[in-house]
């Protein structure tokens, strides 16, 4: 790796990048990339890494194989994952569920396929590097480097055109040209709102010169969404570079990354990246001799969901209670410390360098007319291949769930997909062929949100799902305004009633009415969207609600109060169920038919699992 020295100007950066290329070409012919994001580490990738390293030593292949620790590759379904990349042929093989004991085989085979290890198909391409591939649904712009480079090495980033966009912007462009490029590109905020990023920049740029701020919103709070963490852990410099570009565009000299303290690895890598960028003269004063000054600091969030809302986020940075306030004034006019401020989320920022490198026209070729570019989704739930996926806007839900995700796990039937996290809604089979963008999802009663996508099958109870999401909002409401603070609690009470079979038709009517009131009268986005899971399930899965209310039945068998376990005539009196029952509510002498005391049964289902004779029915 090259030693880090401050770069005087743009040429110094290009020279360094060229040197790195030469250095790479003469390096080891095979690279093994090991997915070392928080998720990978949690899935025990470290022993795999260590085994690979020690195997290289023992097989004396140090000159043939280079190991690179990368961020998350997005292949959560098969962690630990590694990629074996051959520099000559430029071909990769992805292996999943790698075990330390497979290291000898993997190292021995180098770039040929190692038998006995799960091979994964790579189903993405990088639009910046290759042309569209009809075979692959995924297009990686945001995740371009994530899982490919060593996030702790600025050289790795510079080696893949890193900081070239910033160099070009600060040395050859005017701030309004940068803003115009963003407006032309039509990039929309990926945090969920979908507001055109360039227009936001323009508001702030138009404010009188003086103190201004750029904030990166890295307070990723949606349950199940982790694309921002993946980018920060896998490609931190891309975010820093984009922040510097946005600072240049609006005339800000200071950037703040508001990151949740629950992301220690992302924080560590960001801190390191900031230090490296400063050492290289890519942050700080007079960047690349252009006269532009820009620096970045980190602020930690305490993990409040509402702090993802920009005004609440700004309050939190200022040391105040994280509460949203009424807009206008918008932060672009009066934000952090009452100065013009733009707040962009991590995924939005991760698009910017690519736009600056390849231009607005190129960007518009990807995605749809109204929503150019891609969107990263955290695909989770009952799908076969859970993980991070990045697809062009306009891809259908079917392509994501049944293409990239390879359909529903365990041969169950697809029931619904929930998008937009706790603020979103549930979509049915009929909606699967809708090309997704901000508007189409909203039209279906859901929303894009930050990109959580939870797939549900026939074993999921939709009333229970709505209750689950509402519990999240209930915990996360800041408590400032009446409808969100008290109203959501009331909705939750009604859903509990439905789930326990105590509701009547009036409850359903009240549920809908109160949801509408909360939507209409809440102060911020959190409250305004909190009834969405209720409203969308009420609309799309009304049958299930009616089943709970009229028939006291939960078809999915999830709502324990509506489930009943009975022992049928197959019982041989083996006593296994009675011995396993945690509340000892099963009685019967050995070799005689057993009975469940329904009063005391807690519907845990242990008896059914324990029975070897299929003698326990659930209905």
């Amino acid at each position, binding site marked *: 790796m090259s030693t880090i020295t401050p770069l005087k100007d743009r040429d110094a950066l290009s020279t360094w990048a060229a040197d790195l290329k030469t250095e790479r070409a003469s390096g080891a012919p095979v690279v093994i990339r090991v997915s070392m994001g928080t998720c990978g580490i949690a899935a025990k990738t470290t022993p795999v890494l260590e085994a690979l390293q020690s195997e290289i030593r023992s097989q004396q292949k140090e000159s043939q194989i280079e190991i690179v620790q990368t961020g998350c590759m997005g292949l959560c379904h098969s962690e630990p994952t590694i990629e074996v990349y051959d520099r000559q042929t430029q071909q990769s093989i992805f292996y999943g569920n790698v075990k330390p004991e497979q290291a000898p085989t993997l190292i021995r085979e180098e770039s040929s396929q190692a038998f006995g290890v799960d091979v994964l198909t790579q189903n993405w391409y990088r639009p910046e590097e290759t042309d569209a591939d009809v075979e692959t649904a995924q297009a990686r712009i945001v995740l371009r480097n994530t899982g490919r480079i060593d996030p702790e090495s600025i050289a790795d980033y510079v080696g893949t055109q890193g900081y070239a966009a910033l160099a070009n912007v600060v040395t050859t462009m005017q701030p309004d040209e940068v803003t115009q490029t963003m407006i032309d590109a039509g990039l929309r905020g990926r945090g969920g709102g979908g507001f055109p990023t360039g227009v936001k920049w323009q508001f702030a740029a138009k404010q009188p010169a003086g103190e201004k701020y750029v904030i990166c919103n890295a307070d990723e709070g949606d349950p199940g969404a982790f694309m921002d963490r993946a980018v920060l852990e896998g490609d931190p410099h891309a975010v820093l570079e984009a922040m510097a570009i946005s600072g240049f565009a609006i005339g800000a000299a200071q950037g703040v990354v508001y990151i949740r303290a629950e992301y220690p690895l992302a924080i560590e890598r960001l801190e390191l990246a900031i230090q490296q960028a400063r050492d290289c003269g890519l942050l700080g004063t007079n960047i690349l001799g252009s006269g532009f000054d820009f620096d970045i600091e980190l602020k930690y969030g305490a993990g409040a969901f509402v702090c993802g809302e920009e005004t609440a986020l700004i309050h939190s940075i200022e040391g105040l209670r994280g*509460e949203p306030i009424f807009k206008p004034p918008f932060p672009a006019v009066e934000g952090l410390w009452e100065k013009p401020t733009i707040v962009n989320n991590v995924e939005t920022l991760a698009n910017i360098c690519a736009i600056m490198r390849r231009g607005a026209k190129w960007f518009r070729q990807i995605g749809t007319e109204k929503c150019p570019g891609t969107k990263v989704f955290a695909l989770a739930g009952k799908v076969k291949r859970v993980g991070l996926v990045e697809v062009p806007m306009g891809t259908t839900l079917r392509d994501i769930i049944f293409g990239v995700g390879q359909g529903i796990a365990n041969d169950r039937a697809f029931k619904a997909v929930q998008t937009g996290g706790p603020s979103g809604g549930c979509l049915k089979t009929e909606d699967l062929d809708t090309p997704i963008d901000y508007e189409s999802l909203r039209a279906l009663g859901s929303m894009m949100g930050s990109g959580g996508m939870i797939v549900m099958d026939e074993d999921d109870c939709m009333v229970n799902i709505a209750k689950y999401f509402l519990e999240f909002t209930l915990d*996360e409401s800041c408590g400032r305004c009446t409808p969100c603070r*008290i109203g959501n*609690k009331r909705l939750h*009470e009604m859903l509990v009633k439905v789930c326990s079979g105590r509701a009547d038709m009036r409850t359903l009517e009240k549920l809908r009415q109160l949801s509408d*009131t909360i939507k*209409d009268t809440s*102060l911020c986005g959190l409250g*305004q969207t909190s009834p969405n899971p209720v409203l969308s399930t009420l609309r799309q899965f009304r049958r299930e609600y009616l089943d709970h209310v009229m028939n006291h039945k939960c078809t999915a068998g999830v709502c324990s109060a509506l489930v009943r376990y009975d022992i049928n005539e197959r019982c041989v009196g083996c006593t296994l169920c009675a011995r396993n029952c945690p509340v000892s509510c099963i009685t019967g002498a050995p070799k005689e038919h057993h009975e469940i005391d329904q009063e005391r049964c807690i519907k845990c289902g242990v008896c059914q699992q324990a029975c070897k004779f299929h003698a326990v029915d659930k209905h």
Partner: protein
Amino acid sequence: MIQLTVNGFEVQVPEGSTILEAAKAAEIKIPTLCKHPDLPPTAACGLCVVKVEGMPDLVRACSTPAQPGMQVETHDPEIVNVRRTLLELILSAHPNECLTCGRHGACELQELAKDFGIREEHFPSLRRELPRDDSTGCITLDPRKCIKCGRCLEMCQEQQDVWALSFMERGLNTRIAPAGDISLAESPCVHCGQCSAHCPVGAILEFDQTEAVWEALRDPTRHCVAQIAPSVRVSLGEAFGYEPGANLAGQLYHALRRMGFDTVFDTNFGADVTIMEEASELAERIRSAPEKLPLITTCCPSWVDFMEKFHADMIDHFSTCKSPHAILGTLTKTYYAEKEGIDPDSIFMVSIMPCTAKKYEITREASMYASGGQDVDISLTTRELTRMIRQTGIALENLNCLELPDSPLGEYSGAGVIFGVSGGVMESALRSAHYFLTGEDRAELEFEELRGLDGIKELTVNLGGHDLRVAVAHGLGHVEQVLERVRQAKLKGEPMPYDFIEVMACPGGCIGGGGQSWNVSNAVREQRAAGLLKEDRVQEVRTSYANPWIQQLYRDFLGEPLSEKARHLLHTRYQPRPEYLR
């Protein structure tokens, strides 16, 4: 001016107005529980939602700017229904104990519940048991009743810059408390009571001490003395249907006598004494200790507490003179007791004040016991006296408006009257300081520049050849700026920007005090101030030194202003105090 229509009526409002203000201009009342007329919107309660043509969702009238051509609908059946639902939600999380609540009959939530005809509870109760905080002995905080409107926080944090109160926890558990879950007494609270004056419900009230007063009145061995602060007379009537600013001094003396007080004095006389001492202090510092300028007034106990907690480096600049009611308390138990031959220990001294902090002041320091015992036994707020009058069944309109206070601590000058309004202490002091410096009466007694509700008022006055630069600040949030100028000048060794500074903790001065009648706003403050300024104008004697009863007091008892006896009885000491006790 912009033009818009509200419920079909054309209205014109100044640019920057909100929809709520536009509706008000069309004489349409939109209900709200969180928006106070003088404070920025917190947009919390949601009751003020309205429909605007072309906007997909309901918007909050309190915080949405009126735009030209806007078509606003404020009260269609759908909106009314939404409001009812929100109101029911609020009520379901509010204790159902109106009958025993201190705001019963004067509660903004109760009023709306009445208007909306809410007769049954559609939501199960979510009431949460939380302890009451009486620790200050000045205000009572009952977080169970809080509806999270945020008005008290706006007052405590932004307007008063004290930051004693904050919201704790979140979601449904959100509650109001001093940060860190300490008691109010352990917090930076300076007892100004502005939180209680702005609370729409009974979550923050004055600490009620009426029972102790009734007990003394029932005790035949006690000689009960009452004194009324200047600003109480122009605010108390509001609770009885009088306009703000209606001066009920005569009725109040009469009522207090009817309630059983043996003697009724007037704090205005104490104010005259304060001026004698403070103006002498000023004259003395101008003559011989200019390094101790600017002199800063100390009549306001909340301000004193604030200074001791946050600006202790200014202690040397503080006037050592006690506040008017404290002085009157001392004099009652010394001068008056001596003169009338009453055992001072048998005297029960009750101050009727616009203020919650006076409850704290009467025991704050050893000098508050200068008479040998506690100089003032109980300090009541305007609101507590209102209740006592009601309990006695007294109809104010039937009382004698010409009733007079008792001598020798009752007859006052116009200078004493205006103590109750921001700028008044300064104005009165300047009247007397002129005399002390020149030996002559000043022709021009009114200082228009020092009146009104601007947060900081400045003026240069020529007093016998001295150009005196004075500043008046009210609302603690405005003090910082004034003191910072003094501090900077000190640091840089530059000439002081001011010679004399008046500070009152409450916006508008005592007329806007934390213990005054409910529903205070700037409009009400202005009316109350006008009531006091009017009384000053009709007084025969308008300067403290010319008050014959003051002259008698000094001749017979105190000697000179700042005499040893005066210093012992009428002056106090200050000490730095920690902001947090825990």
